[in-house]
């Protein structure tokens, strides 16, 4: 055991197990560990989904040209634009395709003069400043749509979600710290006579602190193990229920979901140490 091995009599002499709140502590860690684990898994999955989507958006660039531009002009200029470093491919949409694209936005797309649309697949290497300058030089009335504003608003939404999740995790950690300090304080105070007797026999502060740390560690890690199992089951169920998520549930999701609740164990131990350090000196 990381805090030392103890004789059964010592463990029994100063034992938090008599405290009902402490026995419920394992369940608390299971529940809060699950909340934290799922929250983390959601956070990492969201990050993966967002990253993939962002990559796709960034790699597409659409030019909307006014109806008076001739097909010949387009063909010539697209060749020029395609020669830029970072432009992978280009495609001039047919009128039918454009109509289909615009259908959702215009009630009567059939009657509209259809603009010319050119789609480019681009990479990060593309120098946008130069490219955009060239576009406007060739097509003074062109509109460049690169989903930048959509990206920004989605990014804001994603960050907000992550912020809320982090805040919730913070609250969960605070709850654990609070409950631990309460349980340790009440548990030890309830056994002040035992603690005093152990001190009279020569138990050092560090022995008494380790004795309690050991118990909290056992309970908390048991809770962590349980919560990890439940988190795994929940994630598996989500993968079955939402198959489109499977691609984004990379190992990082699983590792994060298992590791972040370890933080609860660490917080519990830290708080126990802090509380006990004060408690042993007050007797």
């Amino acid at each position, binding site marked *: 055991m990381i805090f030392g091995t103890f*004789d059964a*009599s*010592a463990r029994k002499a100063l034992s938090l197990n008599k405290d009902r709140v402490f026995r419920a502590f394992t369940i608390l860690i299971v529940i809060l560990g699950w909340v934290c684990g799922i929250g983390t898994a959601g956070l990492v999955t969201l990050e993966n989904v967002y990253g993939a989507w962002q990559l796709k958006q960034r790699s597409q660039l659409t030019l909307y040209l006014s109806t008076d531009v001739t097909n010949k002009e387009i063909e010539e200029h697209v060749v020029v634009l395609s020669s830029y470093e970072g432009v992978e491919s280009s495609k001039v949409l047919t009128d039918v395709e454009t109509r289909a694209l615009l259908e959702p936005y215009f009630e009567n797309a059939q009657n509209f003069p259809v603009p010319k649309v050119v789609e480019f697949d681009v990479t990060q290497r593309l120098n946008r400043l130069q490219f955009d300058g060239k576009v406007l030089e060739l097509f003074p009335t062109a509109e460049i749509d690169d989903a930048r504003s959509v990206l920004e608003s989605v990014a804001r939404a994603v960050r907000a979600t992550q912020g809320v999740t982090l805040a919730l995790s913070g609250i969960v950690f605070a709850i654990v710290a609070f409950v631990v300090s309460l349980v340790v304080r009440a548990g030890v105070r309830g056994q002040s006579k035992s603690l005093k007797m*152990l*001190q009279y*026999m*020569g138990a050092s502060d560090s022995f008494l602190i380790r004795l309690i740390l050991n118990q909290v560690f056992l309970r908390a890690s048991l809770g962590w193990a349980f919560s990890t199992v439940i988190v795994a089951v929940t994630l598996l169920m989500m993968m079955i229920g939402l198959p489109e998520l499977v691609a984004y549930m990379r190992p990082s999701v699983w590792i994060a979901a298992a590791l972040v609740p370890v933080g609860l164990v660490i917080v519990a131990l830290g708080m126990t140490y802090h509380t006990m350090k004060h408690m042993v000196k007050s007797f």
Partner: protein
Amino acid sequence: MIQLDNVTLEYGKSTRVLNNVSFQLESGSFHFLTGPSGAGKTSIFKLMYMDLLPSEGNITLFGRNTKTLDRDEISMMRRKMGLVFQDSNLLPHLSVRENVALPLSLHGPLKDEQTKCVNEILDWVGLSHRLNACPSTLSGGEKQRAAIARAVVSRPRFLIADEPTGNVDDEMARRIMYLFAELNKHGTTVLIATHDASILKAFPYPRLYLRGGNVIKKVPEQTVKRTA
């Protein structure tokens, strides 16, 4: 080995229990501490196991002034001592055997020979049939015997016992005294507070008589010679 120099103890401002007490217990000695109820016997013990510090004066224990010890040093000193409290102070949620094993458990899980030692000492005080009993089910005398077993199990260098024979019959009192005498023969310094006249008569060790905050040392005519 244990030395009190001009020790004064006050509880609060008004109650002075000990007034300029000085005496010395040589290493390997055996003394009784007597005196009327309320004279301050238990208070002297508390000073010795460092539950209290003297208001004035100094106590030297194993060569160290108790006032200068830090918390770890105090625990280390206490591990060399065996304490029998006036009220037996057994932990109610531990069995008799676990209570007695407790001083040994401070060093980790009990080794086989330590477990044997626990059983032997419990046999000695006549509790081998109550090993797993809960202290609340013991008679007053049985509690006291369990507490004595707990105090001597770690073979302390200094044993202090506060009225250890208060609740037992003469026969058991004598057995307990022989146990203390045996420990003393093996080098343990012993100090026993008692009112028990028959014990005082049967075991003529030197006495420290406490009265009015002062200690008077009395040596009975027929002093027991140490054999070891």
